[in-house]
């Protein structure tokens, strides 16, 4: 069960009683092919995933919520109410499809373009919006830039950092702990094509292979690392094939196909739970927006590429699938999107009205206890504020 963003719960367990995966989906795939379950017109190509209507609609609503959250944050940033945001348009199916294969007891080590995974498992837009405004109710207490979320419930969505690839070996370590204690849990770590060039990618996959750690590596190949296309990132024929050198399975998935993402992740998760070790999933997708609100992708992404991928919009594809199931109409889509906007609008109201963190929050959580030198520095800052007034805040705009 996952808590929905509107507070309801929905039955979206990954341990659905639908029998062996092979029976459900056919034989496991290899690195060579691109797994697709839903054709671009929404027709089911593979075996029926046998998801309940509730579960399918929860996936759909979550994708809509991601897109609505993006849309609202872009407006907030452009109007100067928040400093920064990271758009997700185009990669919603990667996030939600992968998240749907996890249980609440699993851990997610995300990148900064993954918050659909948190929404799927019941983190609310209000909790997220507190982070976007960096206010006193932000779990990071305004210490991080927006979109650097941290949640420990209802699923471990581990605090995001800006350095790339660092979360990859961390997920392996967390998975080692699960294995050592004999827990049936899995750690999933998500990262982009650019992160495959980092130290963390190499050490993470290498350690996981040696340890047979219950971890799933999800590489979202969205075409660009800020402005650098994948051809400048690697000469490899794919990212998935890199798994071979680490002695682990690697699969390529149509990242704009939610059901394919779910299938591939579920297979990888089941493999990990069985004790058969890690999997690298390459989700082939496309970042339809900029790297961030500070980025202008028209400077480096060819228009034709954007137009070609717009036709593969993961949300539209899932709508066509739902339509064939008689679960979707244009009116329903518009109504649910309006509901999502309304919900996020409420979150904005709450978050914007929440005060900034207090000055002492600078000095807490550095260590478990505040050491003497930080107490002195804090006291000096409070005394100065009392004598000379508060420091003036900047305009909050991230200048890049």
């Amino acid at each position: 069960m996952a808590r929905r963003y509107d507070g309801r719960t929905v039955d979206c367990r990954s341990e659905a009683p639908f029998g062996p995966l092979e029976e459900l989906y056919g034989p496991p795939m290899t690195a060579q092919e691109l797994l697709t379950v839903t054709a671009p017109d929404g027709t089911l190509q593979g075996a029926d995933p046998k998801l309940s209507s509730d579960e399918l609609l929860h996936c759909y609503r979550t994708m809509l919520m991601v897109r609505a959250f993006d849309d609202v944050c872009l407006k907030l940033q452009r109007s100067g109410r928040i400093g920064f945001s990271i758009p997700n348009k185009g990669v919603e199916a990667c996030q939600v499809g992968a998240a749907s294969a996890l249980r609440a007891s699993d851990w997610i080590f995300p990148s900064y373009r993954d918050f659909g995974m948190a929404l799927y498992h019941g983190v609310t837009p209000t909790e997220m919006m507190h982070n976007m405004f960096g206010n006193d109710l932000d779990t990071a207490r305004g210490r991080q830039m927006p979109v650097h979320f941290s949640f420990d419930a209802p699923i471990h969505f581990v605090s995001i950092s800006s350095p790339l690839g660092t979360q990859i070996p961390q997920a392996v370590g967390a998975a080692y702990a699960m294995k050592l204690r004999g827990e049936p849990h899995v750690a999933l770590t998500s990262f982009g094509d650019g992160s495959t060039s980092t130290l963390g990618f190499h050490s993470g996959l290498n350690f996981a292979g040696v340890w047979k750690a219950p971890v799933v590596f999800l590489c979202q190949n969205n075409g660009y690392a800020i402005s650098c296309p994948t051809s400048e990132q690697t000469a490899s024929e794919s990212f998935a094939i890199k798994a071979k050198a680490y002695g682990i399975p690697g699969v390529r998935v149509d990242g704009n196909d939610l059901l394919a993402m779910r299938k591939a992740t579920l297979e990888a998760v089941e493999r990990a739970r069985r004790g058969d070790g890690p999997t690298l999933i390459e989700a082939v997708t496309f970042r339809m927006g900029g790297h961030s609100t500070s980025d202008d992708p028209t400077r480096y992404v060819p228009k034709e590429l954007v137009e070609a991928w717009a036709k593969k919009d993961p949300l539209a594809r899932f709508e066509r699938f739902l339509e064939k199931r008689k679960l979707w109409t244009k009116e329903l889509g518009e109504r649910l999107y309006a509901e999502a906007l309304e919900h996020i609008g409420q979150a904005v109201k709450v978050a914007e009205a929440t005060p900034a963190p207090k000055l002492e929050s600078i000095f807490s959580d550095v260590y478990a206890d505040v050491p003497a030198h930080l107490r002195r520095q804090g006291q000096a800052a409070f005394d100065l504020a009392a004598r000379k007034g508060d420091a003036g805040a900047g305009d909050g705009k991230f200048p890049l």
Partner: protein
Amino acid sequence: MPTLTMVQAVNDALKTAMRRDKSVLVFGEDVGPKGGVFLATEGLTKEFGRERCFDTPLSEDGIIGTAVGMALNGLKPVAEIQFQDFIFPAFDQIVSEAAKFRYRSGGQYSTPLVIRTPYGGGIRGGLYHSQSGEAYFCHTPGLKVVIPSTPEDAKGLLLASIEDPDPVIFMEPKALYRTTKCEVPEGYYTTPLSTLRTARPGQDVTVFCYGAMVPVCVRAAEQAAEKGIDCLVVDLRTLLPLDEEGVLEAAKQTGRVVVVHEAPRFCGYGGEISALIAENIIEYMEAPVARVTGFDTPFPNTLEHHYMPDARRVLDAIEHVHGF
């Protein structure tokens, strides 16, 4: 009470911690069946099994990256970096990750891990088996930096570091691994972090030092005593967070201060001690603070005895501040 060398005391601490707490793990390069290149982890794999003391692939980034993940998920990893000179591939995991998890998650996530690493010169290790990198880590809020100088402290401070809820860089002066011996209590005990140790009482000049420089400074103090200068030698033991009050108190006692470390001088730890004194108790000082340090050069091999502060250089500084 058994008499142990420092490396034996480290080994004793690891065994004591692992017997006491099943969540304590030891891993790194060659720490398994071989027992570590300095034998600090000898016998651990045999007693605790390969799941709790094991060799890793040769990747410092991987060792610390996975240690961070283990610590996030309830284990207490004690990772070994074979030589502190090789820690830099893991710098990102230490500085950007381990040191910041608690802060950036508002306390939701924390990384109680210990990184043990031998540091310092005196073994003819040249550029890459001799460096003292404490300043890199002392400049990072969220870390604790601990350096013992006696076997008894090595055990007590290591056990305290393993018990600590925050990430600790535990730097072991490899020059002292087998050259110091003392009685070490059996069983579990901790030496509190962020406390100073008086290595030698005295009234005329205060010498601040840590790690392998402590016995050097004590020797220099003995030679100074022959010349009628009575030195107080203070072993800092925990560089971050430092017992600043204790340092100021010890400096006030004599009004004359020498700071000694092997690491290069510029932006070195001695500068912080000097600034602390200048900012807070300048009116108590009878002489400028003198620093005796490594040179601002890479660490040489053949001439390492010229690079490393010795009793001769420390005594020279003591005489200088005493006669000022």
